[in-house]
Every structure is written in structure tokens, then in C-alpha cells.
């Protein structure tokens, strides 16, 4: 196998292929859910990650099953990338008993603790300190596990982000803060909320190193996350990764929203031209890691798995009314 691109040298071919499979799977999930949502059978607010998938894939490819991951309202990609089961995700969106949270959580509250995906909160910045807490536990238990929390660009506006950087740095905790900077919080541009667009530097005064990477370049994210994970495993403390990316669809829901006027169609098209899936696919094809045939085989397989997941979700039973009072102290 020929590997022309130097950035590919250090990454085993099976990892490269697995990441491709995963990013295609996550894209497919987003697009199929967007198609199905108007049927109004998924009765919960859904925040799609279409356009941002590379971040989840590039980071999670560096993690072990026993590492911890947390997320926010926009959590499908992180759940899948950490190894959460597709059909249990889809069933959760349909509010079914077979969903990953038994239909209680919905789209914003996925969890798969069996693979280290410890939960998603729809409260902005909610899981940032919690991820740090798991890192504290790992240190106390003498384990070299790493914790990761994914959040949006608005989360850095909450006080807890800064308080967490402070304590994580103070105790050199193995926690990686991954910010998916998609330029907007709902309809509000980053520069309407923050004086400058430099999230990766926000750790400096807390002595938390940060990098800014192209959030649509899977390999760049993979490399940045690799360094961060290695640092954490060596006990060298927390790390902040800012990934500059873009959400293609509306903040919540399945449609495009440039007609609202808060962002332009040109801006969207500029980002769509830099599709994270196509960029990565092109690199793999050019370097002979994948063939055209592989690409179509994977597309077909992923499509079938998605349909199977949808069928599973639709055919699954709803939770029993009697289960309402379950899991209460």
C-alpha cells in the first residue's frame, strides 16, 4: 500500500479506514434522520451535526473503550464515534423502550456508559466540570484513562468553563476540552457574544495549552487529539482543542435556515464546499488507502445498517406507562 501524504504515515491503515467508515456512518445518520423527521414520529427536538462530523471521529479514534466521553445537546456524532449502538440511538429518537436511554432521554440525552459515553446534557456547558470529575476519579484510582468533553462555542461563555480549566490545570487532570466552534449559538454569531474568535487561547492564563485546528479536516483533528491524549496519559494535564467548523442545517430541526437572515447562503455554500467527508475521502483515494469500490461498498453497507436501525426503532415498543415512575429515588 502506498502512502504519499506524510500526514498519513504515522496512522495505521486500519485506523484510517475505520475512521472513514465512521464518518460516513455519522453523515448517513444525520441525513436520514433529517429526511424522516418531518414524519413527526421522532417527537423531540433534534440538533444535527451534519458538517461537523470530523471532530467526533478524529478525537474518538484516539480513545480507548474505557476512556470517558461527554457531550451536549448536539450529541449524536459523539455517541456514535465513541462506539454507541446506532439502532439504540435511532430508537431513542423515536422514544422507544429499546432506545439507549429507554426513551426517557431523547435526542439531547444520549448515553452509552458500556462504551464510555457517559451522557449528554442539554444545558450549555453542563458536562464540562463533570468530565473533569471523571478525570479526577481516574487519577485517584491510578488509572491512565482520559476524559473528553465536547461542547459548542457558546459553552466557553459560561463561568464553569473557566472554573473547570482552573481546577483541571491545578491538579493536572487528564481531561481534554474539545470545542466545536461552528460560529453560531442558535442564531447568534460568535462575534456578537465574544470579543474575539480565539477560543483555543482561553486556557492560557490557567496554563492549559490549546490548539486551533481545521474542524473539517479529519486528519488534522486526529493528530491534535493524539497529542492531547498522549499528554494526558503521561499525566501532563489538560488540553484544549478548538475545531473550526460549521453547522449546515438549522440549529434545531432538519431543514436549512439561511432564509432566516442571520447567515447567508453564500457562507453555507462556502462551508459545504469543504465537506469533511469528501475532503477525507479524497485523501484516502489519492493515497490508495481506499478504492472507489471500497467507497461504494461502505456507502451501501452503511445505508443498509441505517435502514435496519430505522426499522428496529419503528418496530420497537414504546415504554410502558407503568414505567413512568421507574428510576426515581
Amino acid at each position, binding site marked *: 500500500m502506498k502512502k504519499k501524504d506524510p500526514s498519513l504515515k504515522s496512522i495505521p491503515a486500519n485506523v484510517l479506514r475505520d475512521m472513514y467508515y465512521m464518518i460516513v456512518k455519522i453523515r448517513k445518520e444525520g441525513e436520514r434522520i433529517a429526511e424522516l423527521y418531518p414524519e413527526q414520529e421522532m417527537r423531540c427536538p433534534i440538533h444535527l451535526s451534519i458538517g461537523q462530523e470530523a471532530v467526533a471521529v478524529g478525537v474518538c479514534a484516539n480513545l480507548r473503550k474505557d476512556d470517558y466521553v461527554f457531550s451536549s445537546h448536539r450529541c449524536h456524532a459523539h455517541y456514535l464515534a465513541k462506539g454507541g449502538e446506532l439502532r439504540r440511538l435511532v430508537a431513542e429518537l423515536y422514544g422507544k423502550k429499546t432506545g439507549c436511554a429507554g426513551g426517557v432521554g431523547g435526542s439531547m440525552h444520549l448515553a452509552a456508559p458500556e462504551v464510555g459515553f457517559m451522557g449528554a446534557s442539554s444545558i450549555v456547558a453542563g458536562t464540562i466540570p463533570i468530565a473533569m470529575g471523571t478525570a479526577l476519579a481516574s487519577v485517584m484510582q491510578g488509572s491512565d484513562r482520559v476524559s473528553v468533553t465536547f461542547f459548542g462555542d457558546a459553552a466557553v461563555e459560561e463561568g464553569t468553563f473557566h472554573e473547570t480549566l482552573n481546577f483541571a490545570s491545578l491538579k493536572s487532570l487528564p481531561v481534554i476540552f474539545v470545542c466545536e466552534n461552528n460560529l453560531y449559538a442558535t442564531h447568534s454569531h460568535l462575534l456578537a457574544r465574544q470579543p474575539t474568535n480565539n477560543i483555543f487561547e482561553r486556557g492560557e492564563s490557567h496554563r492549559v495549552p490549546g490548539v486551533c485546528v481545521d474542524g473539517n479536516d479529519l486528519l488534522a483533528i486526529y493528530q491534535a487529539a493524539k497529542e492531547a491524549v498522549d499528554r494526558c496519559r503521561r499525566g501532563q494535564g489538560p488540553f484544549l482543542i478548538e475545531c473550526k467548523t460549521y453547522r449546515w442545517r438549522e440549529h434545531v430541526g432538519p431543514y436549512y435556515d439561511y432564509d432566516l437572515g442571520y447567515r447567508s447562503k453564500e457562507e453555507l455554500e462556502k462551508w459545504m464546499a469543504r465537506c469533511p467527508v469528501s475532503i477525507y475521502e479524497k485523501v484516502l483515494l489519492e493515497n490508495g488507502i481506499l478504492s472507489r469500490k471500497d467507497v461504494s461498498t461502505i456507502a451501501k453497507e452503511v445505508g443498509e445498517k441505517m435502514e435496519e436501525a430505522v426499522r428496529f426503532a419503528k418496530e420497537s415498543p*414504546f415504554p410502558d406507562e407503568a414505567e413512568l415512575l421507574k428510576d426515581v429515588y
Partner: protein
Amino acid sequence: MGKDKKPKEREIKYWQAISEAHVQSMERNERVFIMGIGVDDPKGIFGTTLEAYKKFGKKRVFDTPVAENTMTGCAIGAALAGMRPVMVHARNDFMYYCMDQLCNHAAKWHHMFGGLMTVPITVRAIVGRGWGQGSQHSQSLQALFSHVPGLKVVMPSTPYSVKGLLMASIEGDSPVIFVEHRRLYDYAGPVPEGPYTLPIGKGAVVRMGKDATVAAISYAVWDAIKAAVALKEEGGIDVEVIDLRSLKPLDEELILNSVKKTGRLVVADTGWKSYGASAEISALVAEKAFEYLKAPIQRVALPDISAPTSVTLEKVFYPGAMDIISAVRQIVQKGGEKSVPLFESSLTAKTVYEREFSSLAQEKEFLGPF
């Protein structure tokens, strides 16, 4: 408002009444301003801040970072320095972040310094219910804030009261937690065109009756009215419905007088039953009107769990008119049937009710948008 003419009224929706209250408050007092996440965006908090933004611009209607606690502190400071901030939260749930500034600071500043200063802030917060809003986007936190001395807690149920009470909140000198219910936003009703205020702490009897009192707030008032209509048609049970309008201060006199007349009380709340507003109101009546009670007090409120997302669970989680009907039946029916726990009974009562009163049960389902 013209001095000699009768104030003009027309039907507008709840959200439009909020919008109007904003605009008129800002016209009257240049120190009133609105801030919050998304107040100036294309959707303008379900339309409620759009008009004010159009009229007064970015200087008086502005977006904030997602930093609820700090921005609440900022509002308190601005209020201490003479401004009248209105803060808006698209959900009650986000106010947990600002519990410190609201409860340790806004609530305390007037009393802790012997009345030297006031903090005239109004904090609007919406209850999101339905369409799988789930645990963290649907909470109804009025009881929490009512527990803390120093805050007023207002929960209007109609376009008329939401406008008058919002204007009163903005005009008044105390901090006000102003809880709105998303499901009320499209409800229409008569509202005077010009500015007016309603007294905070005064409820209203919205339907007269002699057999039982249902004291309700916010969205639960509508359920109570539906229940009252059904009970009357069904078996001639005359229910008096009270719209409390605010929980803090609470219109104790109105509740006590009604209970003294009817001898029976059901409290309907949009929050949790345990330690909730319904518990406080029941305690009040037990303390001050016990001898008038002909039957145990009943409460219709949320069961002691967080909101589930799945549609089947959401349906049984939220109590409604059917549950109020069954609660009233339990205390009005003679012969003293053994009462079953409200939650269990409501499940069976629902099917009976749906058959008997299908027209009332046909309320349009809430499908967003959120």
C-alpha cells in the same frame, strides 16, 4: 390611552400581549431595557421581543453571551444604578445557573441593607412543555423561587393578565420572576390597547361555583376551566375556579373566602407536587380554614420525577383537565368512596373522560416550534 374614552380592547394572543407590554413599558420609561439569549434574533423569543427590538434597537434590546449567572448579576448592578432591566430565559431550566445571583443577591439586597436600595429587575422565563422537551427543557420552577424571601413570583394565564402583570413587574421596585407557559403563547383573549398594570398579589375568580374550589395557576387554569365546564354539564357539579396569577405574594384572602364558601379544595399546579406550590396552598387552607373543609384537599400536579421524552410517558406525566375532574369527583361525591392515589386514578379516569367529553379533549396538540 385617551382620558375620556373607554379603553379600547381587541383580541390578541398571549405572546402579542407580552410584546405589547414590553413596547409600552419601554415607551413610558427610557430606563427599561431587555437582554437575554436570542432576544434580538430573527425569532425573538417566540416573537415576544421582536417588536421592541424593531422599535428601540440594539441599545435597549440586546443579545447576551450564554452566561446566565453573570448576566443576572449584571442586571442587578444595572438596576441598583437606576435602570430597569428585563432578562429573558427561553426556559426555566436555564435559571438554575443564576440561582446564586437571583437568590443570594437580587432577593437579599433590599432587606439585607435595611431597605436602603431596591433591585427592580424582571426575569421572564418560559416553561417548555411537550414535543419531548425532556428533563432539562421543560421545568416549571415557580415553587423554588417562591421559597426564597425577597422575590415576587408571577405566573399569568391569559393575554389580559400577562400584559398587565408584566407592566406591573417592570414598574415595580422588587425583583420579579415572571414565569410564562409556552402552551399559552397562542391563546387569544381580550386585551386593552393602552398601557395598564394589574396588582401583583391579587388573584381572580374566573368561574363562580358553590360545590368545590379549584385554585390554579398558569396553564393549569385552562385545565381547571375545562374541568369545571365538564363537571357542570356532566352532573351539575358547580366548580369555582381561581386564577392565582401570582404565587408570591399569594392572594390568601381570595383562596380562603372561596374555600369557606365551597368547603372543598383542589389545587392545580404546573410544577411538581412534592414540596410544591400546591403543598403551600394546601397548608394555608389547613391552617386557616380547616373547620370549613368538608373533604380532604386534593392536589393535581406533576408526579415526583423529571419529564420523560417519549410521547407515551409524556402523556401520562402531565396531568390535565381529566385529573382535575377526577379529583373534584372524589371530594364531591357523596358516600365517601375510598380515595385511590391521584396518579393511579388519573390513568383510568382519562379514558372515561375521553369518551364522555370528547369535544373538550380535542385540544390541538402542541407540535412546536421550539
